[in-house]
């Protein structure tokens, strides 16, 4: 089971509280996790990745295991700790302004 933490506004939009837990078939990558997330919560389509290009939105970042994975390939394997559910995959709204 993959654990995903969403920023507060997206939790509200998806009508979820706390972490989201997802079943992901095949290799666990950014792409497969986000595909599973959007399949379960279609209202999130377009809010994390662009609808057309499927690229990460500019002000969204992906963290896991104390690492910034934002610039990793969407098809790179995620860390084992994310795959086995010990650590969550974090979707973070980038800080802009103060």
């Amino acid at each position, binding site marked *: 089971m993959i654990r995903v933490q969403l*920023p*507060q*506004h*997206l939790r*509200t*939009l998806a009508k979820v509280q706390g972490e989201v837990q997802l079943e992901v078939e095949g290799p666990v990558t950014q792409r497969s996790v986000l595909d599973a997330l*959007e*399949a*379960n*919560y*279609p*209202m999130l*389509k*377009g*809010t*994390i990745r662009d*609808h*057309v290009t499927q690229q990460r*939105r500019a*002000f*969204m970042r992906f963290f896991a295991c104390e690492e910034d994975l934002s610039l990793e390939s969407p098809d790179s394997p995620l860390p084992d700790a994310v795959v086995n559910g010990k650590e969550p995959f974090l979707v973070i*709204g*980038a800080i*802009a302004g103060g």
Partner: protein
Amino acid sequence: MSKVRVLVGTRKGAFILTSDGKRENWEVSGPHFAGWEMYHLKGSPVDPNRIYASQSSGWSGQVIQRSSDGGKTWETPGGGVTTGPGGFPQGESNKFAYDASPDSGKPLTTHQWYDGTQHPWEFKRVWHLEPSLTDPDTVYAGVEDAALFRSTNGGQTWDELSGLRGHGTGPKWQPGAGGMCLHTIILDPSNAGRIYIAISAAGAFRSDDGGKSWKPINRGLRSQFIPDPDAEVGHCVHHVAMNPKRPNVLFMQKHWDVMRSDDAGDSWHEVSGNLPTDFGFVVDIHAHEPETVYVVPIKSDSEHYVHEGKLRVFRSRSGGNEWEPLTKGLPQSNCYVNVLRDAMAVDSLDKCGVYFGTTGGQVYASADAGDSWNPIVRDLPAVLSVEVQTLP
């Protein structure tokens, strides 16, 4: 007794204000979509309980929300856990993809950037939602970068009416300070095929065939900030208003200048008259008196607040040129708010009500056509839009 429902979009959520026909005591509901920018909410004239809302953020982009119970509850159209053909998730109510298909003959073009170079179209947000006059499931969306979209399934999916963006003048359009937004959509109740739209900074356009083909309608506009002040396009039109009872007459608040057209936009003439400044954003028309027009003059294009620190609505009862300040109940000193382009509306009760919201978070109502004003709320986030529904 009739009721009114005022739909308010703000920088940090939406609010719904309701009152009976006296418009003295108000109930305030909200914030809905707390923390999100709510550029616009508007109800269907066919089914007033059907309300569409544009929800957006710089982080997560655009979301379309829909209510079927007058704003008590909301849903993202098609956003439930459903599966479409081929096993792909549905829920594309926030997908605004420009039509770049060869079939349309309108491939994605470029427009003019601030520095004069050409720049590709990039979707940013929905500024205005205009529900159909006849079908509650049909709604138009004006977006930034400027284009017109339509949904015929209650907001679940959207298709661009690409004849507008692709009709030929697109490369000359340029963004205004607020972005290159399509902010005004007017449907003509007397002519099902006629649609007016306006874009900052491109100008006004009209379709007479339901949105398939378009032409600029800017003859008579003069703008000193473009190389040819009388150009066909490039004018920063801030808002256009029409009284449905007299659909060939339009009033426009341009960047500078209040303008009037008596021939469905084919030509315009200035009616700024004795206004203290003719820069501004809003313009609206009395529901029952087509020659009674309202504007809120703003000091200048570099000082976006009301003139002389006084919040004054100016009313003309003669279709322009002769304007009177309306001040009763409005602050007349140390006031430096703006009233944005979609932040004024009128109801259709016998004694026409007029409403507007400010960037200071006040929403004012007048139940006597502007003679006097009262704040419904004083301390909302900056108000982006105000619409009103007159309910039985």
